[in-house]
């Protein structure tokens, strides 16, 4: 019974598969006022870069039907503050942390990956090569297989913890990129990051976001995430942490059936700050109704049924 929700991935022994997604949960402290973070499977902390960043001008968010756009621009206090303040503050929870790492060039990524794994609670790194909201780096690393391969290899050399590479959905064909990352030696994949979108303010006749474009997230993109996870899980054995529009226990199970081995929950935290504990609570009953013994069992079945 208790092991029903357990999933085991490289570096990550998770008591359940529910992980707040990077950028939607800060460094945990704010949500800790709402519930005990120890209930979570893990936390993907906000993207961390070598230097502190302010990010983009505001407005940074806009609403879309069943979705939202964001163009935060990777605002974060920088590696040093994350290491000295943000990560230690999470040590009191019984929780493996996944550190989301971003950069403007290969050296930046390497520098952060070399160090952030030193934090005792960082059990894995999520390499963000798919942020659509920064001019340099970000998505550029995630749309070219060769670049993705080189970057993966470079960070694999320096890291002490497993590396999960976060894929962009803004590509014609995701397969060669996933293959390149696999070949580069990554331990897993996370997907999907946001899709590039825009909203225009009818009164000003200009884009709502100061950055003009932003990343689309939320249930609107769920069918795209499902398709991409399904597609990638057919061509690689790397475990996939799935995300994109998860709001319900059914969504979690749909991602598993598509090929995910754990899931991250982003936008839903804004709609309901208690969504993660609610999902953890709702899963067992829904699994029983659908005749799913355990998530590990479901993962096995899905893998076996691949074409």
């Amino acid at each position, binding site marked *: 019974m208790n092991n029903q929700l357990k999933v085991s991935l490289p570096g990550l022994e998770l008591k359940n598969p529910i992980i707040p997604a990077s950028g939607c949960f800060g460094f945990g402290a704010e949500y800790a006022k709402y519930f005990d973070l120890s209930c979570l499977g893990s936390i993907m902390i906000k993207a961390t870069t070598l230097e502190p960043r302010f990010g983009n001008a*505001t*407005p940074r968010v806009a609403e879309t039907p069943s979705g939202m756009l964001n163009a935060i621009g990777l605002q974060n206090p920088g590696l040093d503050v994350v290491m000295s303040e943000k990560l230690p503050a999470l040590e009191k929870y019984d929780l493996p942390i996944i550190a989301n790492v971003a950069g403007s060039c290969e050296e930046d990524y390497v520098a952060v990956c070399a160090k952030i794994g030193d934090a005792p609670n960082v059990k894995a790194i999520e390499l963000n090569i798919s942020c659509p909201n920064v001019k340099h780096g970000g998505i550029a690393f995630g749309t070219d297989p060769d670049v993705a391969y080189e970057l993966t290899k470079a960070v694999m050399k320096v890291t002490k913890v497993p590396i999960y590479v976060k894929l962009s959905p803004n590509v014609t064909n995701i397969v060669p990129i996933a293959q390149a990352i696999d070949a580069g030696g990554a331990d897993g994949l996370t997907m999907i990051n946001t899709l590039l979108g825009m909203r225009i303010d009818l009164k000003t006749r200009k884009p709502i976001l100061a950055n003009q474009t932003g990343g689309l997230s939320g249930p609107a993109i769920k069918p795209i995430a499902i398709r991409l996870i399904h597609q990638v899980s057919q061509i690689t054995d790397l475990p996939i942490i799935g995300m994109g529009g998860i709001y319900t226990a059914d969504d979690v199970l749909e991602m598993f059936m598509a090929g995910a081995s754990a899931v991250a929950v982003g*936008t*839903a935290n804004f709609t309901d700050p208690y969504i993660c504990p609610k999902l953890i609570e709702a899963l067992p009953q829904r699994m029983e109704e659908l005749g799913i013994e355990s998530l590990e069992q479901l993962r096995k079945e899905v893998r076996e049924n691949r074409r």
Partner: protein
Amino acid sequence: MKQEMMTIISQIKIAPKIFELILKGKLVKEMKTPGQFLHIKVPQADLLLRRPISLASIDQKKETCTVIYRVEGVGTESLSLLKKNDFLDVMGPLGNGFDTAFVKPNDRVFIIGGGIGVPPLYQLSKELKQRQAKVVHLLGFAKKEVIFYEEEFRALGETYYSTDDGSYGILGHAGNLLVKARKVGEPSAVYACGSNGLLKMVEQNFSTHPHAYLSLEARMACGMGACYACVCHLQKDETGTKSKKICDEGPVFPTGEVIL
């Protein structure tokens, strides 16, 4: 407790497009500071983001609170369709409100508001009155018809109006009221909420005043400090990398602190 399905006690239109909504629930116990806001989930499935709306008044005895909002887009439109006894998903209270602890009896205090920035100033004014301050309300509106709570404000202190079209009070914006009011005497505290133009005007007038406060707005997602959607730059930051989050470090800031 930080989130609740509150019960709608009443919803009435108090001016064109402007609604007064009274909510009841245990969450009211947490609502202590004027200037804080509620983060409201509009009951429409395709709208994911909550709407920040200021507390306009709090009644601990009745376990109710009031918000006043203007229908701007799809969310507030949908909100305006709710009726007595319907439930509403409310997070809050969020943010830091207006500091009033330092206010002494007979202090002359300016409350400067514009349009839909006026609601939070009502609870503020009630609390200042309890502290026996002499409150002067300087309120700017687009035109006579959209003025609300006039009687309520007059009951709490001197109240002056300006309208953009001159249909009530003096012609022009609240800055014109401020010029007149300062001639009578300088305030020991200033509180402002309204358009960016209004806030800039107050900032310019009281940039070094020790007790001048501005309530800011920003497009928000989480509303509680986790997503960095709502940041603003600091005036004293040469690196340009520092910021404050309007949702949890604001929405009220003293003048001289953030860049408007």
